[in-house]
């Protein structure tokens, strides 16, 4: 068995033998919220899959606030709560510390290993800080896998217009325009995964990289797309969770997610360069309107960060950005307040040129990604100001517009991606 599986966990799995459904919950100091998630998962399994043997696995990063105790102690009165008969197979619970780099990815590895060992048909992973999870989420994420042979079910949430800005400005457009699938929440964090796909993930040698940290969500999604697994989405309603991820500052969070995306662009280079357009995915569940928590944004601070970066980091940008891109970025910085705008095409070119520089290793990758953070803040500020008066439908249309620019400009991205490498190859003449 794998070295990251402890003897205690192995013993526990041998006791259980096998299971059809594994629900995994990664955690770190989530005692306050994880009880609700465990109760929702238990209720979901009891209500929607009463005849299937199920296990809930909490993969913990060494919590000091009693998270593991909360998981094992969380109770629910199924009969009273859901009006269903007592199930034949009681739901087993495991709470185990994971080994490896601290992060969600390492937690997922342990969950996938449990799913593989128990020969699970479906593995559902949900965040431990969710406040809006309902028992139906488990059905929506597991049923398409168990009953319709899907391999990967991504979440589809309703979110506030200022929420999920990395998703809306980079991750969703890249997933869609480059990899050809309209996965609206590629880094949603709550997924349904088939046993076959979970086993495939375990075979990959990425568990000592940024994937083991925050980059795991996008890695799961893009790997499933690029390797031809059957993908769908499930409508889960609103996603309400803790406002701040403890210990995760924007710079490291952004770096890990974007580094994962750029890294996957290298891994699956031939796939995304051959992919044309994008296809919508089947959506399970019943879409309904729901109120979402408002998000406060300090636009002034973001514009200030952008303006300072364009001035102070100019030499860094000069080393890999196209002169016209840099000029356009400088021109944006000259506008202030409500006049500040970061056009879609400029944003697409900027992201593409950063990806190409990442690929050709023009500078230290960590530095490269850090230097993208203030530009992303500028783009976010511009987006926030543009949609200030818009409703949810109009905001979605605005994001759709950005995705179309990404798709239109894809040839430019490919050209930049290849150009830097070609330049190196041609540089073989002997200098005098």
């Amino acid at each position, binding site marked *: 068995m794998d070295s990251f599986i402890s003897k205690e966990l192995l013993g526990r799995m041998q006791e259980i033998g096998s299971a059809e459904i594994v629900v995994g919950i990664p955690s770190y100091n989530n005692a306050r919220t994880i009880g609700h998630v465990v109760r929702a998962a238990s209720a979901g399994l009891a209500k929607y899959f009463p005849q299937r043997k199920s296990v809930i696995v909490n993969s913990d990063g060494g919590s000091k606030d009693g998270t593991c105790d909360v998981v094992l102690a969380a109770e629910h009165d199924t009969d009273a709560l859901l009006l269903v008969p007592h199930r034949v197979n009681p739901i087993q619970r495991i709470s185990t510390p994971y080994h490896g780099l601290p992060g969600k990815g390492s937690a997922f590895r342990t969950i996938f290993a449990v799913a593989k060992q128990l020969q699970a048909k479906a593995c559902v992973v949900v965040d431990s800080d969710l406040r809006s999870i309902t028992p139906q989420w488990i059905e929506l994420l597991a049923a398409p896998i168990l009953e319709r042979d899907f391999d990967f079910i991504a979440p589809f949430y309703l979110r506030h217009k200022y*929420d999920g800005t990395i*998703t809306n400005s980079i991750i969703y457009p890249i997933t869609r325009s480059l990899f050809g699938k309209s996965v609206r929440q590629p880094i949603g964090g709550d997924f349904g995964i088939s046993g076959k796909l979970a086993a495939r993930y375990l075979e990959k040698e990425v568990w000592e990289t940024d994937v083991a940290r925050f980059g795991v969500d996008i890695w799961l999604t893009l790997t499933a797309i690029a390797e031809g697994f059957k993908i769908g989405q499930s409508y889960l309603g609103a996603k309400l969770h803790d*406002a701040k991820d403890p210990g995760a500052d924007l*710079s490291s969070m952004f770096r890990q997610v974007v580094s994962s995306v750029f890294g996957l662009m290298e891994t699956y280079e031939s796939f995304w360069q051959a992919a044309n357009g994008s296809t919508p995915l089947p959506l399970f569940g019943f879409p309904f309107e729901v109120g979402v928590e408002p998000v406060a944004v*300090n636009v002034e601070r973001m514009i200030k960060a952008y303006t300072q970066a364009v001035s102070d*980091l100019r030499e860094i940008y000069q080393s890999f950005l196209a002169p016209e891109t840099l000029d356009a970025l400088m021109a944006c910085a000259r506008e202030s307040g409500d006049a500040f705008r970061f056009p879609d095409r400029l944003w697409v070119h900027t992201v593409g040129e950063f990806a190409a520089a990442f690929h050709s290793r023009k500078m*230290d990758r960590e530095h490269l990604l850090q230097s993208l953070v203030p530009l992303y803040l500028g783009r976010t500020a511009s987006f926030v100001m543009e949609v200030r008066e818009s409703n949810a439908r109009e905001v979605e249309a605005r994001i759709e517009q950005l995705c179309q620019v990404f798709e239109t400009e894809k040839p430019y991205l490919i050209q930049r991606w290849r150009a830097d490498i070609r330049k*190196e190859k041609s*540089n073989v003449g002997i200098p005098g």
Partner: protein
Amino acid sequence: MLEFLDKSFAEPLRRLMALLGDVLPSLFGVLTILVLGGAIAYLIRQVTYRFLNLVKFDRMVAGTALGTAIESARVFRSASDCGARLVQGFVWLFIILLALSASGTPLTEDLVSRFVAYVPDLITAALVLLLASAISKFLARSALLAAVNAQWPAARLIAGGVRVLVMSLGVVVALEQLRIGRTALLVAFAILFAGIVIAGAIAFGLGARDLVHEWLRAKSKPEPGEKEEILRHL
């Protein structure tokens, strides 16, 4: 008269010829070594350059501290060019030492032996400087990016300070290795370093008094009406 001519002209001429007879073979040997050695050094540079291109050396070092240092120096066309010229430089050094040794005079032999004994120190000092240059550039860029992302107004100044400090340390270590002005240099560096620290402390204490006050106040109690940002990026 014949005796006079013999003493005045023939004798010195014979001595000169004898001297030239002793020196000329060595001189010819030195010139041959220099010409042939130069050609060999040039050939070795070409071969090294082709080899480094073949193993994609430019790509290997791109993005590393070494690659960045080579690029920022703007002296070489590429990392492969730098490597090839470095190898050529070493070959030239060897050829010059060989030529000096071939001249066979006590002065050159003494010079060669002293230089050979000094070579390890020279190499170490050069490596220290190269390393200091690469590290200082890397750390300066790290400081610049961290300061810009933290929105500190003096980000460039901080990055410049980091670079100067690390490079100064490298120069002091290199000169110490070469045994040049040891005591004076160490004392000067200590004074300079202490001066920077004291000046920085005074400047921070006086200049940032209000800033620190504001910061502490903001940390302990937000201003009434001030909105906390809760933007969730993911």
